[in-house]
């Protein structure tokens, strides 16, 4: 069985008002008045294979953290089934908690700024079950891995955000668990440290670890993930292999700036089999499809109808897919 299997997970949060409203609370308790709920996850299902990096992409408030917490056994969903490392989400969630490693973007707030890096980690080491005799060696080992071993007697208050995140990563590494749940591990971090963490994630995959990576850095997801789920307002909009998701709207995009756009031109271009989609914006045409090989044909066709004032071609990125999916969704929401 796969290390992560979830099915129809739905999570609703109570919408809390500011302050304490006795009347309202009492009414809700007596079921006279209905609770207001916010659906943070709506029937989410997927599975992650061993050794895979699974990306969860979505804008702020999409439900990424909610999903990560459910996978860690720290948050109970209202509906759905899940098994993490073969443990049942409800019955065995204590075992789930100790079989996954969770790393959060600001997770270093657990460290005490008045204690050295070493002394901070020592407690979390023994909490993992390291014996007093082996904890020092293990801490030095993980600090070497993240490149902090020379700073082991420094205090975390003197560390930059990037180094603090590395310290947090070191804490994670004190225990050896098969699944890593990473919630925006590179946000607020300089490019150099972020690159280090990304390399590290690749390393985890090599070592056979299963990784779930929540991020809104599309480029990062594109580079690291084998599979991607795009999440918005608690709904999965797309779920596929990274390559397939990227190709969803065509491999390449040709942007042509023209003097004017005529219906004949559009008809002409869309008649080609290699064109998958055309988007028209004022005097700009965006042509999606298998463009590279057929560029001369396309340019010639355009010239037949009008003058070209600018051309640009690029491979479609996750960014394009993401923006398109999210805005499509927004549009349908407006129409409703």
């Amino acid at each position: 069985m796969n290390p992560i299997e979830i099915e129809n997970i739905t999570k609703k949060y109570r919408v809390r008002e500011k302050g304490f409203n006795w009347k309202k609370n009492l009414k809700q308790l007596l079921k006279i008045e209905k609770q207001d709920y916010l659906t943070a996850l709506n029937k989410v299902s997927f599975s992650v294979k061993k050794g895979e990096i699974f990306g969860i992409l979505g804008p702020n408030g999409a439900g990424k953290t909610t999903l990560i917490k459910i996978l860690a056994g720290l948050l109970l969903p209202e509906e759905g089934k899940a098994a993490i490392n073969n443990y049942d989400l409800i019955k065995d969630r204590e075992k789930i908690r100790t079989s996954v490693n969770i790393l959060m973007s600001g997770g270093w707030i657990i460290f005490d700024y008045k204690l050295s890096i070493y002394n901070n980690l020592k407690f979390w080491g023994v909490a993992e079950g390291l014996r007093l005799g082996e904890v020092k060696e293990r801490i030095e080992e993980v600090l070497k891995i993240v490149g902090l071993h020379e700073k082991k007697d420094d205090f975390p208050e003197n560390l930059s955000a990037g180094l603090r995140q590395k310290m947090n990563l070191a804490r994670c590494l004190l225990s050896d668990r098969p699944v890593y749940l990473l919630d925006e591990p590179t946000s607020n971090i300089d490019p150099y440290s972020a690159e280090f963490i990304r390399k590290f994630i690749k390393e985890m995959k090599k070592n056979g670890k299963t990784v779930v990576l929540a991020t809104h850095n599309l480029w990062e997801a594109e580079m690291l993930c084998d599979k991607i789920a795009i999440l918005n307002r608690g709904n999965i909009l797309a779920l596929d292999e990274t390559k397939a998701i990227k190709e969803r709207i065509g491999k390449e995009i040709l942007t042509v700036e023209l003097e004017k756009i005529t219906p004949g031109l559009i008809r002409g271009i869309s008649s080609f089999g290699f064109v998958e989609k055309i988007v028209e914006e004022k005097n700009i045409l965006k042509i999606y499809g298998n463009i590279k090989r057929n560029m001369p044909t396309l340019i010639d066709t355009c010239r037949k109808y009008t003058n070209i004032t600018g051309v640009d071609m690029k491979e479609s990125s996750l960014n394009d897919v993401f923006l398109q999916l999210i805005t499509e969704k927004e549009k349908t929401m407006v129409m409703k």
Partner: protein
Amino acid sequence: MKHALSFMEKLGVMWVYLGRRARLWFRFKISFVFSFIAMFVTIAIFYFINVFVGEIPEYGNYFTFVLIGLAINQYMQTTLNTYLGTMHNMYWSNWLEIILTSPMRLKTFFSSVMTWTYLYATMNVAFYFVIGIFVFGAKFTFPATAWIVIPILILLIISLSGIGLISASMFMLANAKGDIEPIGWGVATLSGLVAGVYFPPKYLPAPVQLISKILPQTYAIDAIRRILLNNESISSPSIQLTIIYLIVFSIILLPLGMFMFNAGIRKAEKEGTLARWM
């Protein structure tokens, strides 16, 4: 991948936790100098009050009477406040989630925290007695039967732990996210007035005495004073009654406290409020 710790590993956690707290404590040298000065001043205040009060019926010298009250109060306040205070710290620093995902789990963590706070309280109590006896000349005879004080104190701590846990559960159940909550605060504040820490409860108006008769600490404080000041022993019926009363209190309050605390954690798991920031 470990799911639980062995007994020796739990002891290891406790040991490292105590070391960590001691290290933090020593880093604030000034603050612990100040806290000792404050204790010294408190004892001095009662020493001078004693000059006016002198003897009180049944118990003798007021200064020795109140020293015992202050000492027990240390353990009481610690027990009533630490669970809630720890919840508060764990919530704001995201410790709770990380502890839940470690094989150490909450029980071992709380045991470590409580061990530290009782060691700290014991150090304060020792300081009270050293100052009281050697600086201000308090006289204690410490009879041979004085050992019964220890089981009484332990029973008192167990029954108040129930209230401490109920207080901590309010952090989640009633969403009391400050470091004060009405139940624990009420009991801690009231016991200063009615439980006989500073004066015998019999001077209180009759209706207020009723409250003092409900609280387990009233009985424990009185019994400990009888043992230390009046040489009473385990054969005395009032001491035996106190012990029975404390056992009954513990049997009711401790499981209730644990039940409510667990219900609180479960509520937080549903609401997603185990941690503040993430």
